[in-house]
């Protein structure tokens, strides 16, 4: 009679959860990086500067992207928010 096989490393589900938490932690970092891009622009009122509508669309575009990503992550993370303890560092 074969003994029940133990998973090789960790249970995939909890491993996936932890990586998703990592993603949730990294999302604001990504946001900060993208919102720093305007620092590289040439002012709109100088020649060759970023166009008004272009600047506006960029910021709102990044913002919308972050909201969508946060929405997806929160839906998954909410399921295990009841679990109290963080993983040990």
């Amino acid at each position: 009679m074969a003994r029940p096989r133990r998973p090789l490393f960790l249970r995939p589900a909890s491993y996936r959860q932890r990586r998703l938490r990592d993603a949730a932690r990294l999302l604001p970092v990504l946001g900060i990086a993208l919102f720093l891009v305007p620092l590289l622009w040439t002012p709109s009122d100088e020649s060759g500067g970023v166009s008004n509508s272009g600047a506006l669309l960029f910021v709102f575009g990044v913002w919308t992207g972050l909201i969508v990503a946060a929405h997806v992550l929160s839906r998954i993370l909410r399921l295990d928010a009841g679990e109290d303890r963080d993983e040990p560092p």
Partner: protein
Amino acid sequence: MILTFNILVAVSLGYVAMLFAVAFAADRRARAGRGGWLRSPLIYTLSLSIYCTAWTFYGAVGYAARSGLEYLTIYLGPSLVVIGWWWLLRKLVRIARVQRITSIADLVSSRFGKSPWIGAVVTLIAVAGVTPYIALQLQSISLTFAAFIEGMDGGMDVDFVALWTAIGLALFTTLFGTRNLDPSERHHGIVMAVAVEAVVKLFALLGVGVFVVWGLGGGIAGTLARIDASPIPMWQGEGGRWVGLTALSAAAFLTLPRMFHVLVVENDDDRHLAVASWAFPLYVLLMSLFVVPIAVVGLERLPEGSNPDLFVLALPISEGHGGLALLAFLGGFSSATSMVIVATIALATMVSNHIVAPLWLSVRGPDEVARDLRGTILLARRVSVAAVLALGYVYFQYTGSGVALSSIGLIAFAGVAQILPAMLGGITWRGATAKGAGAGLLLGAAVWAWTLFLPSFGTAIIPQPVLDQGPWGLAWLRPRALFGIEGLDPLLHAVLWSLLLNAAAFGLVSILTFPNPLERLQGAQFVNVFDQTGPARTWSRSGAEVEDLLVLAQRVVGHETALDLFQAEAEEQGKSGHLPDATPGFLQRLERELAGSVGAAAAHALVGQFVQGPGLSVGDLMAVADEAAQILEYSARLEAKSAEQERTARALREANDKLTQLARQKDAFLSRISHELRTPMTSIRSFSSILQEEGLTPAEARRFAGIVEAEAHRMTRLLDDLLDLSVLRDGQVTLERQEGTLAEVIDRSLLSAGALKGDLAVLRDPAAEALPVVTDLDRLAQVFINLVSNARKYCDADRPELRIAVQRRGPQVIVDFVDNGSGIPAPEREVIFESFARLSGRRAGTVAPSGAGLGLAICREIMSLLGGSITYLPGQGGAAFRVTFPQGVAAAAAE
């Protein structure tokens, strides 16, 4: 539609009345326990929208018209904080729940050893920072009224609008925000009203935006073309301000008292944060979406020199859309009012808990304190609400309306941001000390006041020469160029130096000083809030009299809450009744419960007055040490196990004691009963033999026969009682199901017990008593009669008084009978419900007891048959009995 001033006032008043109705209805629903949906993630997210004040509603357009994209920094900062909830917000919310935090001042003071000083400093900074902010809201309301009036004849003076708005808001806030001292410090009515206002302002701004883009701008493509052609450059190359303001708004989002209140204190589920993490950024994105189109189209169409802060309102007015203008007005009005309401509640809580309560505690002795703490705190809150609004009004009058809305808001942001280093350091760094936090806060606040707040009054406080050359000619102290570094933007200059010096002082002093034990303990609890196996203890041993603590708790959190808390704890410890042992764990829980009402520092001081001995022992400090964590967890498990065994043992011991006592009582009962029966028997026998003798006068014979009859009566009554008791005990009793009101039963009982003619004053509550009940009313009346006649017989006060209090809790009806006599001494409370338990040796000088001592025993049997109970209620100032029974008869008891 022609708008007149009267219509405007009528609409505002109608809107405010609607808010009152919403808040009132939500409060009622929550109290009736049907408020589940009031606590949904949606309502939570909407309540966060008080971040968007009148500044957002009107000021953002003005900001965009002046500085292009920069207005977005105010929303990007908070969006990033909320999107990164897993980093910080989750921890804050958890800490606040575990520690029963009531405000940001409470959080910081609690972290640094429940220090009252730190709490007071944070409170003062918050008051100084938020006052301009409240002034800003008043200013925006008065500006919008002025904008409407401009087009009307008469040219009325609208200064009084701000004053009346402030008065109306004070009224609303006092009504719904300070009605009671809720241990959880949550306000359903207010949160609901804020959520409604959130929808109104979003709808209004989107309405104006849609009108501008599709009505005036020529669709999306047309509007984008106009934006490209407009004279305002969107990106003006101010990289420093872009980064600095984003960071500043992120900091203010966490430290503004009103944001902390809705974000952390009113939160009751971690999972709401997950929803808010995307829904709140979405909300602010929608709020800022149409700002640039409105600014661009406004600059194009409105006459030169119009105030861009009012474009949202001026565009619909100039295009002749009165309805839309009214909607925009309401949107701005709700932005301003919701912010002011929540901000004043948050500030009032802080002022009463961290300034009034500690002062009160320090000037009063412990006995006096407990007497009216609750009333004092409520009063303090109401006065603080009025004072905060008055301050805002004064600031508004002082600065005049010349300043742009956005610059006032940023002054406030920079002020409250001074709390950030202490807060962040406190929850992430165990080494942070109270002295460090105090140094950082004071230095930061001083620099902020010198470089930003005081100069905002123009030259009224800081004269021009000081601005130019520095005080006493010290050039390096110039408010606009500290340390001689010139050429910085004034706001960035102030933010940079104040936060830098604040954080540096905080870190440096923390490193150089030692925390006291309580600080270390709290530090460990805050930093490792997710790893707690159980709450650490701050009270090691105690000489506390539990009954004193009960009296204290009743005065702070309220009568019923305190009794419930003590009863639950007693049950946990395996004891019956309302008085648990004063274990360190219990004292800790009690302190937290009190902290929910009066803040951590005051609660600690209050409990400290009743507990002797040092607050912390070496063993407790061991718990702080990281290295011991593993051993600790293991021993905690052992401890839990042994605590459970101890509980079981205690319950067993109690049961055993009771059994032994019962056996002894059985014997006593037999001898007692023979004695009780023999006494009347003896007199009957002797008087009947006298009656048989010759030579008695008829009068004598009648008298002796009378005595014989009376004794026989007494015997019959005793036998009746005994029979009653034994029948009740066997459970062979048929209950009659009757309907009636409690008032009828009490009336009947008072009449039968003769309480109406005696000198016993009965205090009743007719409103509460009009309660329909279905049970065996005759049996219930029997219990009441017993309790009333006991009070008549035994209450030894000069003016005996009996208070009958009725309340309903779920399906249970609770009736308390409380007299003002000397009560029953603790050791005898255990036995009063046993047969023949007339208390010996007490109340000398009162009427000798005439009953057989079966009354309460019968009461207890009856109540258990009715599916209820009767218990002695300690800590009420006299003898007090609590009768509990189901409002509808229990099916099992009625056969």
